[in-house]
């Protein structure tokens, strides 16, 4: 039984339809990728999977419940989000940012309990951030900031994790590091990813989005078939199997315009 699924949802931004009639299903513990060209609606679709954007049509079900029938706090206890907001401008420390994950559980003047503090410290140390716990969030590297936001999601104790381009602006080490750490958390994870080869290497299943619709889905070698990717991304793609990992990967040479 899927832990989160959408039934024919359509999403608009300021009245312009961006995602139309998308149905997807994600099972418990799955790591699912959403890929697509710039402007295809990846981020919008991800926003429609939590309460950032209400669907114009269709429904989002979390377990048995409609996402929009849950209270905002209850929804936040089930779905954590690592968005691209990682420049703050206020001088929060790593541990303060992670502590924000307790908000769906705390009303008004409620203080952090010892259990809360323990959870925060453990989450930081799980992501290798314990030495940086009292450092300024804004002064850290992109990879460390991304890990802090993942620690915040852990503090939120939600079974479902949504990631919006978690590897953006990171060097190759931190791209792999972030995905490896997310993978080892064993949460149900849905990630919008820019890099097709990272998606192919880390995701169990992939949805390819083009112009707001799902054009392919399945295991990496099925969803990321060379001819489909060539068409959707307007490039010349060649598929191969990675000699070491054995994963499905792609090579690109020319754009479709050059080739014709």
């Amino acid at each position: 039984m899927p832990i989160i699924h959408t039934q024919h949802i359509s999403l608009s931004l300021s009245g312009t339809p961006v995602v139309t009639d998308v149905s997807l299903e994600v099972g418990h513990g799955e790591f699912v990728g959403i890929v697509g060209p710039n402007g295809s609606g990846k981020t919008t679709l991800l926003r429609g999977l939590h309460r950032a954007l209400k669907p114009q049509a269709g429904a989002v079900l979390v377990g048995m419940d409609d996402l929009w029938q849950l209270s905002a706090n209850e929804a936040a206890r089930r779905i954590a989000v690592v968005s691209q907001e990682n420049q703050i401008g206020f001088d929060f420390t790593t541990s303060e940012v992670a502590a924000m994950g307790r908000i769906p559980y705390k009303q008004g003047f409620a203080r952090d309990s010892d259990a809360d503090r323990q959870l925060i410290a453990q989450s930081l140390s799980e992501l290798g951030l314990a030495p940086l716990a009292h450092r300024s969030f804004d002064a850290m590297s992109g990879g460390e900031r991304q890990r802090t936001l993942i620690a915040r999601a852990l503090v939120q104790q939600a079974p479902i994790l949504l990631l919006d381009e978690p590897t953006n602006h990171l060097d190759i080490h931190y791209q792999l590091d972030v995905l490896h750490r997310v993978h080892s958390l064993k949460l149900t994870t849905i990630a919008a990813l820019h890099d097709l080869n990272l998606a192919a290497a880390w995701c169990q299943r992939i949805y390819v989005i083009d112009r707001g619709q799902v054009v392919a889905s399945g295991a990496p070698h099925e969803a990321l078939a060379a001819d489909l990717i060539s068409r959707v991304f307007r490039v010349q793609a060649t598929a191969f199997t990675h000699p070491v990992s054995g994963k499905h990967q792609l090579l690109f040479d020319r754009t479709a315009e050059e080739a014709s």
Partner: protein
Amino acid sequence: MHTHITAATTSSEVLLNDQRLRRRYRVTILILIGVLFAIATLGMSIGAVSVPFWQVWDIVWHHLRNIPIADELRGTDLIIWEIRAPRVVLGSLVGAGLAASGVAVQAMVRNPLADPYTLGIQSGAAAGAVAVIFFGGALRSGLISPAVGGFIGALVTLLLVFSLARQRGRVSSMRLLLVGISLSYALSGFTTFMQYATHDPAGQSAILFWIIGGLGGAEWSKIPLMAIVLGVAVVFIWYRARQLNVLAIGDESATALGMRPDHLRVQLFVVLSLAIAVAVSIVGPIGFVGLVVPHVTRLIVGAEHRRVIPLSLLLGAIYLVGVDVLARWLIAPSEIPVGVLTAILGTPFFVWLIRRRDALAIREGQ
């Protein structure tokens, strides 16, 4: 206090450091309560007639316990209890209220360089009060005082800013900031015009108060309204401290954590505007407290609003009462309006702050 702790590697060490920081925070609060107490004593003690510290508190104690004052102290009692004490209390309330409002406004518009007056309330109040003085003479009507005019001006401005910043039922932080600032300019121009066109000297000096602000008119009768309105605003901000942390980060994060950032921003806007409107209509526009104090507070305890709010209340009270003591002392027996001095002291600080931020940004390679 941002200590760079490199030794902490395990979660238990993180917890230990947390504990140390909490203890340090509690000590800071206790020290600042002591400083506020000292500066309030100083504020009641110095002036044209200097009164020893012990006598200040002796008189205050008599009033608090409702014990009659000895006849030979009547004159001193009048100065302390009727003139200086309400001034110190009003200064503490306004300082604390403006500082906490500044903290909340900065989180609300997600810009650490905003202040309570960024929303245009100050300019609206000034324009309203000055309009009453300007047209009042011509109309010969004593129906509304400049203070009431100032309050009405502030309310009209807040409604205007709010409706202009609203689009499709949402109030974005950027629109709030831009609309507030541009409206401030328009209203200041209007106020300056009225000041320029007034030739009657009494009218001119009355207008001046609404451009600079000051604590000179402090009396007990003005305290309860101020205390209630600012108290409600502060309790509201404090209650939302946790949410303010996320509001400062962004709406996406706030929504993901189960908040409704739009609702919170509207609530904050209404509560803060009313508090600021009341404060401005009683003491005039006292600038820079709401900008300077939140920053000093963050330098001391970092950005976490659950610590920033209580500390900014104390620092705001200390700052305004302290500057007011200076304002009365520098050119004694005459005095400088406190609003002038907060601006003169605030501006160099503001510039230093901007330069420091730039230096930080360069060091981080951005």
